[in-house]
């Protein structure tokens, strides 16, 4: 079974983003970029499936500018066998990404797609579900446990009330939540080896995907900031502030 993994290049999760002074977008110039943390988890799961003999090949795919090659090399250092860059200079919307993945699923005869549940930049939480809909395949979103058995995958999902387990017929699309696993770190020899692994480049047109823009970004603003807090010295003072000043208890 071949596994396709989504790898998105995003701002490093530790970095607090700045809004451009002309409010046209956020400023990502000279910002530290990284693999989306949820993609790291998705990739780790795919690599473990390969180590367990369940997956035969792990293919990392990124839709983005040529800079995304950096994250694809990182994915190969972490265990992906090869990588595909769907190169575009435009901002790829979730539906465009899903359409590209749908084509690749078909071309590569994929049994399982592992994606992150959410991009930490656009906070969309859409691609996996859209891909499942486009391909008519079942989905297991927000996964905290994934067990592949024969032609099925059993997925435990994090839902609002706790956990829900579903069983899906393969091929299926699974999106990783935070507690699915703890991703490993790449070792130096693997980083060296990754440089020689194949990285193919394609684009929307070659995949036969027509890109129709759904959203226009009109402006980006800094959210209202809370004014600085009041330090209290004791529990008694806290209680009286909450009672008399804030009137919340």
């Amino acid at each position, binding site marked *: 079974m071949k596994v396709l993994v989504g790898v998105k290049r995003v701002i490093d999760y530790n970095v607090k983003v700045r809004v451009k002074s002309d409010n046209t977008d956020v400023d990502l110039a000279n910002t530290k970029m990284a693999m989306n943390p949820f993609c790291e988890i998705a990739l780790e799961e795919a690599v473990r499936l390969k180590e367990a003999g369940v997956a035969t090949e792990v293919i990392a795919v990124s839709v983005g500018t040529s800079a995304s090659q950096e994250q694809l090399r990182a994915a190969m250092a972490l265990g992906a066998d090869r990588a595909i860059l769907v190169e575009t200079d435009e901002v790829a919307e979730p*539906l465009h990404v899903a359409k590209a993945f749908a084509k690749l699923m078909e071309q590569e005869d994929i049994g399982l797609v592992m994606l992150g549940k959410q991009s930490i930049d656009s906070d969309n939480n859409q691609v996996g579900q859209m891909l499942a809909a486009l391909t008519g395949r079942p*989905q297991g979103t927000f996964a905290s446990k994934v067990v592949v058995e024969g032609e099925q995958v059993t997925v435990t999902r994090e*839902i609002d009330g*706790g956990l829900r*387990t579903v069983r899906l017929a393969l091929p299926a699309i699974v999106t990783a939540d935070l*507690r699915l696993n703890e991703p490993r770190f790449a070792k130096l020899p693997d980083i060296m080896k990754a440089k020689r692994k194949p990285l193919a480049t394609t684009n929307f047109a070659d995949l036969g995907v027509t890109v129709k823009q759904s959203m226009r970004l009109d402006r980006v603003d800094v*959210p209202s900031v*809370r004014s600085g807090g009041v330090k209290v010295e004791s529990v008694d003072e*806290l209680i009286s502030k909450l009672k008399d000043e804030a009137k919340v208890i």
Partner: protein
Amino acid sequence: MTTLLIAEHNGQQLAPATLSALTAAQQIGGDIAMLIAGAEVTAVAEQAAQCAGVAQVLVAQDDSLRYELAENLSALIISLAGDYSHIVAPSNSITKDAMPRVAALLDVGQLSDITGVLSATQFQRPIYAGNAIATVTSLDDKQVITVRAASFAKASAQGGSATVTSVAVPAGSGLSTWVADELTVSERPQLTAADRVVSGGRGVGSKENFALLESLADKLGAALGASRAAVDAGFVSNDMQVGQTGKIVAPELYMAFGISGAIQHLAGMKDAKVIVAVNKDEDAPIFQVADYYLVADLFDVLPELIEKL
């Protein structure tokens, strides 16, 4: 303009988040139909018909909708979508699962987690963990939208008199089967609907120590929340995580104990009306968003608070 609003409910009650999404739908304008989907939802449909501004209630009742699996729920919504310009739902784990499918099947984009309605096609939504607010215009002929309930006041659950109509439920896909639920049972208020939230982080130290926070929560009639670190460490269950990738809360009072205040956590609670933080680290970033903060050991503060409240 016509909106199909997907209700959130638990089989007995319409969830408060539905009323917040109803406000967003009212701001979009036009007629509003509310869809109640599930296995046994007659009682919920009656409540829905009372909601202010709802013209029509559509009831889809079938065993295949018991768990509102995304494959089945999205097929149902698609079977109705033709009549509507907007398909709107409060953001929750069911709609996050199903709505992007609806959008893809309609070949349109989705606006996730809107926090403001500027016009029928222009909306605001937080990006980068809430560190920026995007204003976006949908260029599609249909809008598929999930609503961040915490950002909208609740519409009135009274005063309406909608017609109630049953709709046909498409056959389930059969590709996905429910196996089991492991739900957290609690007498406390629901985290996303509570007026008060008491939250603990890694600093709480253990599952056993969380009992202290539970006592405080019970004193205050508050819901219990947690940081990711507390959930990862197994102190509490996953459904208590507050943050960018957990639940978004905006209670009257949010009390954080032993939480450092990472941007991912702040993304989930910084719209609370009053924030209290207790942390022994003078430089804890959470103090920058706290209205009142105490630099102290939470194990000293909690027993005293519980006693004196």
